[in-house]
Structure formats: C-alpha cells, structure tokens
C-alpha cells in the first residue's frame, strides 16, 4: 500500500520523460501535457492504493493507452474535418497560411545551457526528430526498453504484446534511428 508521498515522488521522477514520450508521439505540446495529466489522474484515481513498486509498469500502460486513444480520436476528427472541408467552397480556406503554423523541427531545442555544447544540442534535436519518424510501436518499444529501463518482459506487458515483438520493434527502431542519424552526419553515438 503506497502513501501520497510515494506517489508524488514517483510522478515527479517520471513526469518529464512521460511528457517527452507523449510529445514524440503526438507532436503537440498542449496535447502532450493533456495526455500526461490524464495518465497521472488515472494512475492516482484507480491505482493510487497499489504498492509503489507497481507504479512504473501501471503508469506506462496507462500512458501508452492514453496516447493510443488520442490517435484514435484524431483519426475520427480528421475523417470528419476532411469530409466537411470537401463540402466547403475552396475560398473559405484560402486565409490559412501553412507557413505560419509550420513547426521548425530543426530549431525546436531550448536555449543552450552554458555547460551543454552546441553540437550536443544538435544531436539531441536530431534524435528527437528521428524518434518522431519511427512507427508508434517501434518508438514505444525503444523508449520503454532503453529510456525507462524496463526489461523485455516488462516492456511486453506495458505494450500488450509478446517479448519477441518487443525485440523486433527495438531492433528495427535502433536500426532506423541509426540510419536517420547517419544520413544527418552522425556516424557514431
């Protein structure tokens, strides 16, 4: 049985990584924050009385499911908006300028801290860009396995798949990321 302090400590230790995971998946800062908040509330509300040792796996399951729910909702919303936009006259959408809303992925890193080198910042930005290009399952497996430090069995439990699938996803993700970084001039990491 956990107490509020244990849950608070766990959430504060995981919240930034969770936000980044959601951001890589949905590529929208506000949506990523909403997803993390939803996942936190679900964990606290439904599993707040569980032992603290169970929090990491439970939270990752909830987070990944919340991200998947977001994608499902987006798919439905996009289908409806496509339907309506096809029914609308073209001149009504002419005011929209994509350049105003285009995100510059190459320059999205925060201002460099004194101790961090410019080169490192560029590599981080490239890695983040590479992660957003992976398939959702590959990214999920890679981040859970190597960033969250879960073993294959835990990753499989969090993703709801077999350990074999986790290994395949991780291998392909690593290979795809390496190829992307190599194409951008990063040979070794």
């Amino acid at each position, binding site marked *: *049985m956990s107490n*509020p302090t244990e*849950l*608070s400590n766990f*959430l*504060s230790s995981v*919240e*930034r*990584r969770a*936000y*980044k995971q959601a951001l890589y998946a949905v590529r929208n*800062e506000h949506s990523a*924050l909403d997803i*993390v*908040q939803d996942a*936190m*509330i679900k*964990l*606290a*509300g*439904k*599993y*707040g*009385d569980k032992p603290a040792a169970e929090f990491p796996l439970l939270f990752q399951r909830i987070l990944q499911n919340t991200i998947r729910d977001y994608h499902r909702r987006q798919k439905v919303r996009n289908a409806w908006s496509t339907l309506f936009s096809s029914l609308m006259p073209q001149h009504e959408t002419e005011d929209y300028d994509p350049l105003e809303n285009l995100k510059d992925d190459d320059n999205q*890193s*925060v201002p460099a*801290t004194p101790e*961090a080198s410019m080169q*490192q910042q560029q*590599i*981080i930005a490239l*890695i*983040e860009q590479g992660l957003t290009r992976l398939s959702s399952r590959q990214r999920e497996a*890679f*981040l859970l*396995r*190597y*960033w969250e430090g879960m073993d294959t069995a835990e990753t499989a439990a969090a993703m709801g798949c077999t350990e074999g699938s986790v290994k395949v996803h*991780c291998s392909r993700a*690593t*290979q795809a*990321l*390496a190829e992307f*970084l*190599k194409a951008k001039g990063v*040979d*070794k*990491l």
Partner: protein
Amino acid sequence: MSTNTTDNNRRGINPEAVANLLTRATQQLDSETVTALQRARDVALERQLQKKPVLVLHTGHGVRGLIPHSTHQWVAAAILLVTILFSGVNYWQHTQEHELGHLDAEILADDLPLEVFVD
C-alpha cells in the same frame, strides 16, 4: 553483452547513449511546461485513491465464531442460557404476583365495581 556491443558498432548507435541524451533534453524543458507538469501532478495527487477505514464489527470468524468449540465454552453457554431462562421465569412470576396483590388490595379497599365479583 558482447553481442549487443557488436550490434551497436554495426549500427553506429548505442541506445544507452541515446537515452542519456534524451534525459539531458528533459532537464532543459521550459519553465512553463515544468509548471504545467507540476500542476498536473498536484491534481492527480488530490484524486489519489486511498482505502478508507470502514467501521464494521467484525470478529474475524463470521457466524462460526458464535458456535462454542471447547467443553468450557459449552458449559459457559449452558450457564448463560439457564441464567437467562431463570431470570425470565422469575420476572414473569414476580409480575403475576404483583398483579394479584394489586387486585387483592383493590378488592379490600372496595374500589372495584360489582361486575368483578360476578366473574
């Protein structure tokens, strides 16, 4: 371990190094995002499920706890039962005597109507 190292060399990427850089990136989040995450955490903590203590009289044995198990318990239960029965009978007798005494007192005092003597 050596297989992993060979794989990493072949791929030119070390997942642990990538993870370290990603962790570094989380330390550079802007203050607005950090504040929003902290607020989200506070909201979640307010809704934390806590099992509240329930006031229930529970012996831990259920109905079986009421049944005597040893000879001593059976004797104690029998004594308790006899005492209750004796007290009940005694009380009933005392009430009867009290009523009869009251009736006698009223007869002697001539407070009763004549119909009472007809029966």
